[in-house]
């Protein structure tokens, strides 16, 4: 029984699936590794568009990751320098999270502006509805209502 268990365990642990898709990169310091991981989360794969570099295995994403790796380890560039390098070449689109600036104002604040507009429209509608005078029923209508109610009861 024990033997079988060990066999199963070793088969699972040595399975090649475990090693598939794992990037092998070595870093001199943990800070470099953290920076590399952070940047590959933040930068967009331009051909897959809705994936960041970390999630993508497209050819271009691999090249860009390699480039980031090189800049982090060999050239010792800072986070800002690497981001500037990428934005200079690929534009703001390369950033997964767009920067807040004039041209992205609507993107960032548009939804809140719409929400405010909706809120004001709602307020006005509710107010307007309240101010409508309630019309009293005249005798004829009152009679008709009474008749209706009575007919339901029977």
């Amino acid at each position, binding site marked *: 029984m024990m033997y079988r268990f060990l066999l199963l365990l070793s088969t699972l642990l040595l399975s090649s699936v475990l090693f598939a898709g794992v990037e092998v990169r070595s870093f001199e310091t943990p800070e470099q590794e953290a920076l590399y991981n952070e940047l590959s989360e933040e930068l967009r794969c*331009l*051909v897959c*568009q809705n994936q960041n570099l970390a999630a993508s295995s497209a*050819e*271009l994403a691999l*090249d*860009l990751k390699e*480039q980031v790796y090189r800049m982090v380890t060999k050239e010792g560039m800072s986070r800002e320098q690497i981001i500037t390098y990428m*934005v*200079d*070449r*690929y*534009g703001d*689109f390369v950033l997964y999270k767009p920067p807040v600036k004039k041209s992205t104002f609507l993107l960032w604040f548009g939804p809140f502006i719409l929400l405010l507009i909706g809120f004001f429209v709602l307020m006005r509608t509710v107010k307007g509805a309240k101010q409508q005078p309630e019309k009293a029923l005249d005798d004829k209508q009152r009679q008709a209502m009474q008749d209706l109610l009575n007919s339901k009861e029977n």
Partner: protein
Amino acid sequence: MSSYKHFLPLVFFLGLVGLLYWGLGNDPKVVPSPFIGKQAPAFELPKLYKEEKVSNEDMKGKVWMLNVFASWCVSCRAEHEVLSKFIASDNIEVVGLNYKDYGTEEYGKEVLGWLQQFGNPYNVIAVDTDGYTGINWGVYGVPETFVIDKNGVVRDKHTGPVTEESVRDRLRPLIQQLRKES
């Protein structure tokens, strides 16, 4: 309540439809190049199967194009005929950037075979085996065509295969305009 207020939601809705319709016509794959209006990035690369190097300094004072291509790229094949005709008829200086292909002896001869089969419209071919120059130029999909003026400034970037329409409406007028500039 005045009657025009009833139409406000309709106007709003039509506006939204218009916005979405306009969005439909936009190609999300085309990312505008931040290089337009800026100095083209420098490069110095080996020429295809030659010892010599080619750099953008060689093109100084000329209106030229940089066409990024590869033998594995199907769209490059698609644009090749149109592009070659345009280059020949308008007598344009073009550097071919052979992007991540097999341009050096130790790889293969794919690119030579490709050029023999389809023709070589380039004045010179720069070999970017590892794709570093491509990244430096912000290349994200081949083919891409950059138009560079006499002062070495990138004036336009055409992403994707060059078509007869884009030659007629965009590239040819631009090249003619740039040739008049000093």
